[in-house]
């Protein structure tokens, strides 16, 4: 799934939530883009994603891909952050019965999975309920 260089390239986004935004139409992009798909502007400024938002939709993965075998079942959701950015991620530390559309969540930095037998540990963002 990943190699050291490929993993390293995504670190700014996964560890620090680095994004960018269009100076013209003010839309924020995560992951960052080279051109605004809305207005064609290439003058995009560095930005960071908001750290809180709410769940738009969710599911519980019962049959996982192999790197996630030891974690199943786990919840995955699409979250709309306070700055309008929409991202996918796991929702953890939440009873499945408490999952619902509109649930307030915040971003936390977590271990994602281990790549292969002697592979690298992969980290990134997950969501936890924001009470």
């Amino acid at each position, binding site marked *: *799934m*990943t190699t050291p260089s490929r993993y390293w390239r*995504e670190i700014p986004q*996964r560890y620090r939530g680095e994004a960018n935004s269009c100076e013209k139409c003010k839309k924020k992009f995560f*992951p960052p883009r080279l051109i605004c798909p809305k207005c064609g502007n290439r003058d995009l400024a560095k930005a960071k994603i908001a750290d809180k938002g709410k769940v*738009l*939709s*969710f*599911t*519980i*993965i*019962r*049959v*996982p*891909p*192999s*790197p*996630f075998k030891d*974690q199943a079942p*786990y919840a*995955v*959701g*699409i979250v709309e952050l306070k700055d309008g950015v*929409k*991202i*996918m*991620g*796991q929702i953890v530390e939440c009873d*499945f019965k408490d999952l619902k*559309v509109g649930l307030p969540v915040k971003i936390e930095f977590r271990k*994602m*999975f281990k790549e292969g037998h002697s592979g690298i540990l*992969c980290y*990134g963002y997950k969501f936890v309920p924001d009470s």
Partner: protein
Amino acid sequence: MRDVAVIGIGMTKWGELWEKSLRDIYVETALMAIEDAGVDHIDSMYIGSMSSGIFVGQEHIASLLADYLGTSPVPSARVETACASGGLALRMGFMEVASGMNDIVLVSGIEKMTDVGGDKATYALGTAADQEYECYHGVTFPGLYALMAVDHMNKYGTTRKQLAEVAVKNHRNGSKNPLAQFPFEVTVDAVLNSVQVADPLRILDCSPITDGAAAAIICPVDMAQKFRDHPVVKILGSGQATDSIALSQRNDISWLESTYRAGKGAYEMAGKKPSDMDLFEVHDCFTIAELCVMEALGMVEKGKSGEAVEKGRTAVNGDIPVNPSGGLKSKGHPVGATGIAQVLEIVKQLRGEAGERQVKDARTGLTQNMGGSGASTVVHIFERD
């Protein structure tokens, strides 16, 4: 542009074909289409295949399959838009014939999925989603469609039972299709009690892993009656559109914008509207997909698809028959082949050769073939002369 007709179709029984290789499955199927068309040669060929590289470790299959079919040195190209690769192969061939560049073109699709285990198959299918921002978080394809299902249920009150009714209807149709992988009926209870995959979707909401191919021969309409005396089935419209590959990037999670756009393009080219269609073959990779597609193609209003299925409107004898072939659910889903198998069903229906699952007086039909969680869609409209 020249008018284009489908003059030959071919498909063998789908399933776990352990005794057959990729090339054997392909050649058998393509020869059936060539024989059905009655042509003595082809000018060019297109093959839709999503991931032969991962499934059988073989790229460059366009030339491999031309060689084994005995058609080399004609030009052959493999095209890929994930699970919409088959539909794309037809669209490429359609453009080639319509433009006048070539006359007789073989359009086809194939996937040999069971040479790898379940984990690798899941991985291969997952490559149709965003590797860095979806798969990295442990989501699967059933998971992506489950996110659409939760959104649809939340917004429109679509019920778990309505989802199950899609599977029940498609299996009922598929039980009358001898080429289907799973030609048997299922009950609502069986769907609702099947193994959970990604809530709220269960295993009987999901299309299976399948080996199979499908092929068709197309040519200019004015040549169509030169070879065989089949009723002439014209391609009236072709549409294709894209959307963000990541589901999270869409404005509306359960609205398939690429299907809406591709449908609009095809309807406009054909000069037709949704209510002109006698039947639809659509991409029900999951039960929720069929519901979202019905809305995006304008069969029903947004949010009304679940109710339409529950009332039997999409049955073979309903007013908007959907997936009389059994759909991906019962017929199987060898991903690259699916788009061409849809064409095969429409042609059979319009020729009046669909047997027990025949839609009465079918004259106009539509195919909708979709890749990933809806980032690619290809739509075609067909009419019998």
